[in-house]
């Protein structure tokens, strides 16, 4: 352990060069991300011409399908906080999706006929029974509510490690859908309308006042541009999710998550409170799942228990694994690929091949994809930055004393070494 009596300029080492190269890469990365985002935003304007293309045209999903792809991608990005950053295998993420969807159903439908309460709801007559809040408000309520559900579930379960945690989350992922399926008669009170689900659910909108003054759409449902509006709103929500997740990853909390993933015991010894930090990962994952669920319920105009099976949790996990565990951009790519296969891709490919049944085997196909990824590219399509670096960066194995020695040599010295 040497002391440095006076600060010297940082010595250029191989490692520094690698860092510099990576920084350049991330600079080229941002324009690329912006360009892709722009293409996504403009998709409704050129979708028609794409779909008119011969042979490939039919592979471009309709706007309605794209909304579903974007919503599922948003959930995958949220799940990535739990699984990717903090390394907590959560097999019950669908519970948060359900909690969000039912929050929207409770506060924007005729489910509770006993009361009539309207606040900011658009496109419905003022005398319609039930609670009708503005969908924007509901998205926030759903986020907060599922965060609380996440904390409640997380608190007892996050003491467990690894496989045990996965099994318990699996249990909670089953309990919540079973609960909504059966909560149509809680001492005579109908909370969820059982297997029928709750429908219709109000659509978003900005109301007449904002429509007249700012030109924002009054109600999505009544608009001719319904699909476009839902699509852009979904993209906006995904954008917010990605922004928040990237910022969190690079924050004090994000470092603590990754430290826990790397070595729980060491993290605790460095002052990271394990329970609190893990619960936050779980709660933040839950938040985005809840918002996505509430929004999707509004898009579908319904919350149905059949949508909240275990396979949704696995489907979202597949997106994360395919794209790259812990990598936000990877998870987006994984989400888009699997989401597209799910809503349209498999059916279209099936028609092409003359096999009608292709979508029936979807989970078999996803399984094959995951196996292939694990064999060929185990860190995913776009690996997390730190795993990428592991491969690129050579092991620094300079003997301790040489490092000191060549620091004292000037530029000429370095040249001499290189020549020698």
């Amino acid at each position, binding site marked *: *352990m040497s002391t440095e009596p006076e600060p010297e300029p940082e010595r250029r080492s191989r*490692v520094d060069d*690698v860092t510099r190269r990576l920084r350049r890469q991330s600079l080229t990365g941002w324009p690329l991300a912006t360009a892709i985002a722009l293409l996504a935003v403009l998709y409704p304007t050129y979708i028609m011409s794409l779909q008119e293309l011969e042979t490939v045209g039919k592979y471009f999903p309709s706007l309605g399908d794209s909304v579903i792809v974007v919503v599922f991608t948003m959930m995958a990005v949220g799940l990535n906080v739990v699984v990717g950053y903090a390394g907590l295998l959560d097999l019950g993420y669908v519970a948060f999706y359900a909690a969000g969807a039912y929050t929207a159903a409770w506060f924007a439908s005729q489910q509770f006929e006993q009361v009539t309460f309207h606040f900011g709801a658009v496109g419905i007559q003022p005398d319609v029974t039930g609670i009708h809040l503005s969908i924007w408000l509901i998205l926030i309520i759903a986020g907060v509510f599922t965060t609380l559900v996440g904390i409640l579930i997380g608190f007892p379960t996050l003491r467990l490690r690894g496989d045990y945690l996965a099994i318990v989350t699996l249990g909670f992922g089953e309990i919540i859908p079973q609960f909504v399926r059966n909560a149509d008669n809680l001492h005579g009170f109908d909370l969820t309308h059982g297997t029928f689900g709750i429908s219709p659910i109000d659509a978003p909108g900005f109301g007449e006042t904002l429509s007249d003054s700012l030109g924002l759409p009054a109600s999505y449902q009544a608009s001719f541009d319904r699909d476009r509006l839902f699509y852009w709103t979904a993209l906006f929500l995904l954008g917010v999710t990605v922004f*928040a997740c990237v910022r969190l990853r690079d924050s004090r909390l994000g470092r603590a998550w990754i430290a826990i993933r790397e*070595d729980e015991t060491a993290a*605790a010894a*460095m002052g990271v*409170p394990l329970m609190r930090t893990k619960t936050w990962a779980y709660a933040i994952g839950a938040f985005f799942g809840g918002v996505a669920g509430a929004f999707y319920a509004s898009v579908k105009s319904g919350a149905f228990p059949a949508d909240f099976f275990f396979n949704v949790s696995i489907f979202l996990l597949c997106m994360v694994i395919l794209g790259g565990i812990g990598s936000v951009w990877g998870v987006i790519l994984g989400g888009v690929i699997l989401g597209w296969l799910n809503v349209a891709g498999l059916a279209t490919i099936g028609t092409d091949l003359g096999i009608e049944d292709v979508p029936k085997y979807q989970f078999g196909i996803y399984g094959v994809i995951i196996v292939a990824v694990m064999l060929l590219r185990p860190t995913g399509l776009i690996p997390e930055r730190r795993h990428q670096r*592991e491969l690129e960066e050579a092991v620094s194995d300079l003997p301790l004393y040489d490092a000191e020695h060549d620091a004292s040599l000037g530029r000429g010295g370095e040249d001499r070494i290189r020549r020698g």
Partner: protein
Amino acid sequence: MADLLLAERVRKEFGGLIAVNDVDFIIPERSIVSLIGPNGAGKTTFFNMLTGVYTPTSGRIVFRGVDVTGKPPHAVTELGVGRTFQNIRLFQHMTALENVLVGMHARLKGGIFRSIIGTPGLRREERQASERARDLLRFCGLRGRTDALARNLAYGDQRRLEVARALATEPVLVLLDEPTAGMNPQETAEFTGFVGRLREDRGLTILMIEHDMKVVMGISDRVTVLDYGEKIAEGAPDVVQRDERVVEAYLGRAATA
């Protein structure tokens, strides 16, 4: 000198095995104390109780006047106990700088909302933290390794990084678990000097588990010897060195007729 840490009749049982048997132990402020003993003597178990990894079966541990018995590790760290591990436990896929920043976790404030929004106050805090982290890395001889992944560092550098990370928690007491394991004599000598500087320059108190007797005898103020979970000797290095029971524990009983 006041006592920084006080352990009273600390005991740890694993099932029927008594790993640490009613050990009394004190660490005076600004001292360098070594804990030695044959393999399996209960040194690391004792360490783990001091840092909150294990809860003692019975007994009491007081650090700076606060009873820390059974407190979780992060709370003990927050009170000012930093540590390294016998088998290096760095965050492998994080850079040297990030490893040190994790060490600062308890000393930074950045919350969720401020992190997402990126307030000026938060940016300042992060900038200052990474400044301090760079200083620490330099202090520990890791200049130019700042952005290397921990797993790609050479062995000696990994040991240094463990110390830098422990110092980042802003400790009063540093616990080093076999810090010179795997070092060559020159590195060991250098490290011994470094430990001395931790006390002189930074006013730290140090407790270390060490097998290298040259290091132990060279810098310790006090040495405590454990054998089969019991304290068999304690005192100044030269006294302990001559203690019959210590010699016996290490070399076996002399063949007396």
